[in-house]
């Protein structure tokens, strides 16, 4: 009994200390460098590169100290939204471009127009910057663009006797079959099942192929589905046939397995975002190349996401902190060659001219992909549409559903979803 009491007292003291720590957070304004906070959704490989950049930023100057707290990407937006609802979000946050529309209308993000000087703005690539503008106001600054690209195994292609990279969908099917016949390996590694990660690749490819044929996933006003037509049929049929008819792509392949398959040298063509480069180039003995997403079905167009940096609105916005945050964003974006080490494409023109960036292998090969990146449809319903399409495409491909009926069911569901917003 006595032991329990002493233990309890000790622990009580411990909590007391913690209480005090919490209180201190609100009070003291330390003189010296401005302390900024940042929540990052970059974990794993990406996380290491990002942390290294923050360290270097802090070391490069002594006016601002940036503190970075990592939150697993899966829970990141839950935490961010909750914090924004109480106006306790950190000083700078990362927001996917496709998610900005969930935060802009409520006035949760600070419009940056007055704070960013012209020279900095002009250094940004236009398309990604424009994607951060809503109703003419700028709500964040793009940190990177990450399109879906193609990786290919040079050794397998050589062994299969393929000398030129295919460009059309038909050529790809043919090449994949050749790979299978000559080497026994898989021609394609496109993931089509949800595991730890959702099977977004199918949707990304589907969207890209719609645009490549001159169509679009949603109507221009984003109020209706626009894929239940010849374009959609061609795209879905191709994706389906790779798995079921031509059998050059494994069925029930999840995201991690697709990457691992390519890493182990078991697949010739692999499609994923540029972020995979960082992982792939660390695999010993993997002789691979990277290229922008081929124009399977006509024009060049590729799904691309973009990480942007934004400044949340606070209860008492401290102009010094805002200025410091802008400086931070300026430094991070203008040192994009460090972020490119993770595979991402930088957004500042000055970075693409730097020697260190040009020296990075693979990045230069697909840097041009940013030019035909597909913008995300501007609708608050996007997250639900994206997730639902992934589920339904997953089903259509893995279960080899009839294309026309699958598409019409998708159209019905998507339209119903849009109507609820």
């Amino acid at each position, binding site marked *: 009994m006595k032991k329990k009491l002493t233990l309890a007292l000790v622990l009580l003291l411990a909590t007391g200390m913690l209480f005090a720590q919490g209180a201190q957070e609100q009070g003291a304004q330390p003189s010296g460098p401005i302390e900024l906070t940042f929540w990052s959704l970059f974990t794993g490989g990406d996380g290491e590169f990002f942390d290294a950049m923050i360290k270097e930023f802090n070391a490069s100057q002594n006016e601002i100290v940036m503190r970075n707290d990592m939150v697993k990407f899966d829970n990141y937006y839950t935490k961010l*939204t909750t914090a924004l609802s109480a106006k306790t979000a950190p000083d700078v946050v990362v927001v996917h471009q496709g998610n900005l529309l969930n935060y802009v209308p409520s006035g949760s993000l600070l419009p940056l127009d007055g704070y960013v000087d012209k020279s900095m703005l002009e250094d940004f690539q236009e398309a990604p910057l424009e994607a951060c503008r809503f109703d003419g106001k700028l709500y964040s600054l793009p940190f990177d663009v990450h399109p879906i690209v193609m990786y290919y195994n040079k050794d397998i292609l050589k062994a299969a006797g393929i000398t030129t990279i295919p460009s059309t969908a038909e050529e790809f099917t043919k090449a994949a079959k050749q790979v299978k016949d000559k080497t026994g390996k898989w021609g394609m590694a496109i993931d089509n099942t949800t*595991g730890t990660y959702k099977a977004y690749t199918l949707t990304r490819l589907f969207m890209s192929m719609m645009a490549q044929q001159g169509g679009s996933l949603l109507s221009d006003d984003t109020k209706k589905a626009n894929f239940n037509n010849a374009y959609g049929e061609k795209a879905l049929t191709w994706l389906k046939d790779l798995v079921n008819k031509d059998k050059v792509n494994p069925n029930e392949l999840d995201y*991690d397995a697709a990457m691992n398959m390519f890493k182990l040298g078991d697949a010739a063509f692999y499609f994923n975002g540029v972020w995979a480069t960082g992982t792939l180039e660390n695999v010993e003995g993997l002789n691979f190349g990277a290229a922008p997403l081929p124009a399977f079905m006509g024009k060049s167009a590729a799904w691309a996401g973009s990480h942007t940096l934004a400044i949340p609105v606070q209860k008492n916005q401290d102009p010094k902190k805002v200025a410091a945050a802008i400086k931070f964003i300026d430094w991070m974006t203008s040192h994009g060659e460090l972020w490119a080490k993770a595979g991402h494409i930088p957004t500042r023109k000055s970075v693409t001219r730097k020697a260190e960036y040009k020296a990075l292998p693979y990045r230069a090969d697909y840097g041009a992909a940013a030019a035909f990146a597909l913008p995300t449809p501007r609708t608050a*319903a996007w*997250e639900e549409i994206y997730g639902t399409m992934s589920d339904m495409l997953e089903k259509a491909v*893995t279960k080899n559903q009839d294309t026309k009926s699958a598409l019409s069911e998708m159209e019905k569901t998507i339209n119903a979803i849009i109507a609820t917003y």
Partner: protein
Amino acid sequence: MVQDLLRCRSEPNVLQGYPMIPGNKDKRDGILFSLPYLAVFTLFMIYPLLFGFFISFFKWDILSTAKFVGLKNYTDLFKDAKFYSSLWHTLQFVLITTPILLMMGFAMALAVTGKSPLKGVMETVFFVPYIFSMTVVATLWAWLMQKDFGIFNQVLVSMGAGRVSWLTNEKYAMWSVSLATFWWTAGFNMVLFSAGIKQIPQEIYESAHMDGARPWQVLTHITIPLISSTTVLCLILQVIASFNVFGQVYVMTGGGPSGSTRVLIQYIYETGFRYYKMGYSAAMSYVLFFIILLVSVVQYLTLGRKKD
């Protein structure tokens, strides 16, 4: 002789709950003893619970001002196919896991309260998985069951069998997640059942032995009836826990394949925090709450009343 002892235990205790001292202080004591919990509950839980219910009558994206929509969220969800499919997936999980987990827990408890020299080892081994967090268990089992590189399939392939689509075939996915859940939580039921079994007086067993009862008779006529309140406890808790399933399914299958294992709580979570339809999410939460409450009350009233 056994019968006598059993009758002794189950005879109505007229004075149950009514102490013999004059000046009945039950009311005062009841409230006093409830106060600590109620204080904590009021301070930390009442506001969120009421807020959640309140917001279910609004359209709210968490960040903007909420818009009153009356019963619209509720009428919408009753027309929502995804609500029904998610609820059905949750029900599947409840129906699969409840009977099996109860039986497993009971069987394990028998094993560890019996005479086996291995009972200490078994108790530890069966309980330890419960200690792990949901993420750890789910990630581990997702890896064990991974179709192309997981060890289960690699063992099967090496034995000449084919790969099993543990988590990627909708016929198996829910069962696979349930299997992981069995490993994870059967030990907890074992602990509850053990505690119940250990409270059975040794004399009853000794009498039965003297009366020449066989093990099966002892089991069905003594053990099972005498732990009935533990069984009911386990049953109610298990049903509530299974209705609340989310984490392990989400980590292992992401709700897939093709959303075929999306349970209701996942839908509630995504609706609130991915699609920013918090009011709708709240409405679904309270419908689920109502279902769980109904099921629990029915179970308790039909099974849980002390047989006086």
